[in-house]
């Protein structure tokens, strides 16, 4: 019994230590990873938070060791033993000095923690915005992300492309966060803390990713039935890759006569009410802009990979991947869907 | 439990349970009103369309009536404490009349706002916050009047005696609270918010 009790108090420090060492190992891993861990920061805000968290962990860990140690000691030393006499122990009602001591020390710890925290809050929230910053407007929808680049005149969805930011060439991305319906939250752990998207309450956050690659995240504020499937993909590109991507996104939708039948279906069925394809009559904004659908790796905000089969299944019935999605099943025949998919597959 | 030491010199003075309960109720109700007042204040000037607080007529007469009813109820408490039951009944009835006048006046004010100024609870933010806050207060006046009328009936039937003075005092506390809330609501809606 005694051994088990001390095990419980030892287990927690060990789990903290292993967490720390795992975190340190992961932190030295350069670049994005499929596990969106807050211990693998790849952007200045995330780094600042990570550093602060290690400091706080050190302090709270010490407090834990001291207090849990005292408690463990008390449990072992002062337990009743069969050999005890039957007298009650000495009754101690209190001590003003002791009370003062263990009030003053926590106050001092709080002061230290508070000042450290305040510094980081101001460093992140009130960081001056450099001229080289790229502005992206993020609009949260049920259950997808809209991204607008005012400088380039681009509108896209679900997969955010940003240029890499290095110490030499700093180009942070300032995200302006809006919502078209309910509350959402933009969270890509490796790139920074989350910030909420609240209707009628524009928010701002910034990231400056240091390594190229794909970073994963998802909506972090419950927004309805398919909140779990409102995933985020952030592609951090080299300057060349980014320029090429921008150039492609700026082109109007591809007009290929071979798939005219599919385009005709797109424009006459209700698709155009919700979706936009530049260069056609489709100018709907309720759903994602599909002009460059084929430039994206996933559909339905990450719910499925972007393959013709998945597209077919999605259009036939969105509930296949996302039951509760606001896109209705359009009751199209299989032939219509095939033509539609053929058309969409040309939208690079 | 047979041999606990008894110390005849020790007495602990304790408040009456009715007073404690009423004070607690008042604290709780104050919290509700605070939330509605905060919402009202936060939304001042934020209606994007529709009638503004300029349409409000300051209800001076109503306010005088309601606040005077606090004075009459104090006088009534005094009367019953000293056993003047007829004076108590008269002052109590006067308190009720002043309360009823306040409600009638509020009704007239709302009638004007709804039918002439076309302001309802669904019109805009001002409508929503105004009718909610003033309506919440008016509902408390109604509840207070219901309690007062119960006492009135019992008094007229002869069941209320001088020994009930403390219970009357507890009820009067509620009425004073309703008046105090009106002071706040009046200031926020008709002075600060306009």
């Amino acid at each position, binding site marked *: 019994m005694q051994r088990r009790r001390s095990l419980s*108090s030892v287990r*927690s420090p060990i789990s903290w230590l292993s967490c720390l060492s795992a975190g340190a190992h992961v932190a030295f891993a350069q670049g994005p990873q*499929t*596990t969106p*861990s*807050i211990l693998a920061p790849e952007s200045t805000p995330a780094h*600042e*938070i990570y550093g602060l*968290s290690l400091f*706080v962990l050190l302090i709270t860990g010490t407090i*834990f060791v001291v*207090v849990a140690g005292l*408690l463990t000691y008390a*449990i072992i030393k*002062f*337990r*009743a033993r069969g050999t005890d006499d039957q007298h*009650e122990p000495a009754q*101690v*009602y209190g*001590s003003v000095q002791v*009370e003062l001591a263990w009030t003053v020390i926590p106050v001092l710890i*709080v002061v230290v*923690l508070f000042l450290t*925290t305040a510094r980081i809050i101001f460093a992140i929230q009130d960081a001056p915005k450099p001229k080289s910053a790229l502005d992206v407007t993020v609009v949260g929808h049920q259950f997808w992300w809209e991204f607008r680049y005012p400088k380039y005149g681009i509108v896209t969805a679900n997969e955010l492309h940003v240029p890499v930011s290095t110490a030499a060439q700093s180009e942070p991305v300032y995200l302006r966060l809006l919502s078209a*319906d309910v509350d959402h*939250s933009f969270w890509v752990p490796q790139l920074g803390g989350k910030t909420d998207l609240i*209707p*009628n*309450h524009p928010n701002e956050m910034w990231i400056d990713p240091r390594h190229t690659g794909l970073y994963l995240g998802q909506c*972090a*504020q419950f927004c*309805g*039935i398919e909140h*779990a499937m409102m995933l985020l993909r952030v592609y951090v590109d080299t300057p060349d890759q980014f320029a090429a991507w921008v150039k492609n996104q700026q082109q109007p939708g591809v007009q290929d006569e071979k798939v005219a039948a599919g385009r005709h279906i797109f424009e006459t069925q209700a698709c155009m009410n919700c979706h936009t394809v530049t260069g056609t009559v489709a100018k709907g904004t309720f759903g994602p802009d599909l002009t460059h659908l084929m430039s994206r790796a996933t559909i339905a905000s990450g719910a499925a990979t972007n393959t013709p089969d998945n597209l077919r299944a999605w259009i036939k019935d969105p509930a296949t991947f996302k*039951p*509760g999605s606001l896109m209705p099943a359009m009751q199209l025949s299989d032939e219509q869907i095939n033509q539609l998919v053929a058309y969409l597959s040309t939208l690079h | *439990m047979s041999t606990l*030491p008894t*110390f005849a010199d020790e007495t*602990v003075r*304790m*408040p009456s349970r*009715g007073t*404690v*309960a009423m004070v*607690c109720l008042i*604290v*709780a109700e104050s*919290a509700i009103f*605070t*939330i509605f007042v905060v919402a009202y204040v*936060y939304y001042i000037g*934020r209606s994007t369309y529709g009638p503004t607080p300029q349409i409000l007529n300051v209800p001076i007469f109503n306010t005088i009536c309601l606040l005077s009813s606090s004075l009459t109820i104090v006088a009534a408490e005094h009367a019953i404490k000293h056993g003047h039951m007829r004076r108590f009944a008269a002052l109590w009835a006067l308190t009720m009349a002043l309360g009823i006048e306040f409600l009638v006046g509020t009704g007239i004010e709302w009638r004007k706002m709804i039918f002439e100024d076309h302001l*309802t609870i*669904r019109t805009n*933010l001002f409508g*929503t*916050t105004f009718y*909610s806050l003033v309506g919440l207060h008016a509902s408390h006046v109604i509840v207070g009047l219901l309690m007062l009328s119960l006492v009135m009936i019992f008094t007229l039937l002869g069941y209320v005696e001088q020994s009930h003075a403390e219970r009357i005092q507890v009820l009067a506390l509620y009425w004073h609270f309703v008046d105090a809330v009106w002071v706040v609501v009046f200031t926020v809606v008709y002075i600060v918010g306009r």
Partner: protein
Amino acid sequence: MADQSLPISGPLTEAYPTRGTFLEWLHSWVVTVDHKKLGILYIVYAVFFLLVAGAEAMAMRIQLAVPNNHFLSPELFNEFFTMHGTTMVFLVGMTIIFGIGNYLVPLMIGARDMAFPRLNAFSFWLSAFGGLLLYFSFVGGFGLYGMGSAPDVTWWAYAPLTAKAFTPGHNTDYWALSLIVMGFGTLGAAINTLATAFSMRCRGMTLLRMPLFVWLMIVTSALTLITITPLTAAQVMLIIDRYLGGHFFDAQAGGAPIVWMHFFWVFGHPEVYVLILPAFGIASEVIPVFSRKAIFGYPAMVAASVGIAFVSTTVWAHHMFTVGMTSVGNTFFVLSTMMVGIPTGIKIFNWIATMWGGKIRFATPMLFCTAFLFQFLCAGLTGIMLSIAPWDWQLHNSYFVIAHFHYTLTGSFLFCMFAAFYYWYPKVTGRMLSEKLGKWHFWLFFLGFHLTFDTMHFVGILGMPRSIYTYEADRGWNTLNFWISMGGFVQAIAILIFAWNMIDSYRRGKEAGNDPWDAWTLEWSTPSPPPAYNFAEDPVVRSRRPLWDIKHPNDPDWKYER
């Protein structure tokens, strides 16, 4: 006791009248205004819904044990986590604290009943029916995809998701209405507790001689008055928006969803202190008795409790660090949240100091209280971590937060409730709970609790957000989720053992007598169970531990207490 002469007419041979028929027995429970019976009703209600909400949790954990699972549909999962949270906070937490308070407060202060027995009954039935209304939602209406109309908007129901435009069904209405009804019941119980504690104490019992549990019930009840009411106000506003066309939270009319957040958390944060303060009171009764020492620093404990209540009303926006408050606003709430940790820490130190130098007996109540001390320490420290706003920008709405508040609610609150059960069950029923089953319950629950909630901290750190019915298989969360779910099963088994213990010991438990634990407060001076009138003679006290004074006439407390 029962045979002493008293100014009560009639014989006093029986504590309760003979049982009569089943219907008569049932009727006596339905119409009762006796604080002890109402306390038991509250507690039985709470334990029932503990099992229901626990089942909801188990269903969710089965769904999340593997990625892309199809055990629960998204709609049902969303209903379950909303109902699990709402049930645990309101139908289990609030009812059990006022149930235990109802039972014990009059006994501990030497009174015969609560100040307002009929208000007491009214409050219970309001709460009970409010809760039933909440659960009626599952069957009351077809709902989305035929899943019934149970609330599915999370237990904090942010606007504008709750607007008619986004939640056209009745889910949100059930949530708002049932909680408004329950809120009135809670208010009644709080008012009653305050009136009782201030106005009905026996002779000699000054405020500073009351048991700490009574103090904590006073502070809890006072805090409740200004905690539950903001929720009621906000829910009335929500209903005005949904049914009268109001615009309180309507962004298009200039309203602000953020106002809902502020109002909700002005309720929501002090609410968790309303829940934990009675648990502190229980610990403050159990730990001294089983350490064989008076509580260390009684005045400091009172001051710390009052301090916690006051400071807890200033911290609410630490739930809103990510909504875009200014840096100054965020900084203020960081400071206030850290401040509330100070009196809380002081209490932990006082409990340890009570054990220090004692002769600790590790009966089941003390096992639960000892685990509570470790777990509450951890909970407080993860709370400090969450109070660090930048770190919270990562941890908010992740499984780290869920782990933190389950450490406070399950690991601290529930563990203290279990301690209370094992400690006072003998008083309520006259029989001891089985120590053997108690230890099985404790160790299994302890194991399962740590397996689930220790692991949960890590899956949150690895980026898993909350309120999701499934997760991607390639994010590295699979194994951790599996073990979290396994821990849930272990806890479920422990709870079943506990339920069996309560039922079986009622008939076959060892007879308890008045004072099986050799304790010191007034409730232990009555028979077990106490008669309807509690005390044959009005007690008179001279110190904080009247029974200690009787048992130690050469060394009574009143010689040493200030």
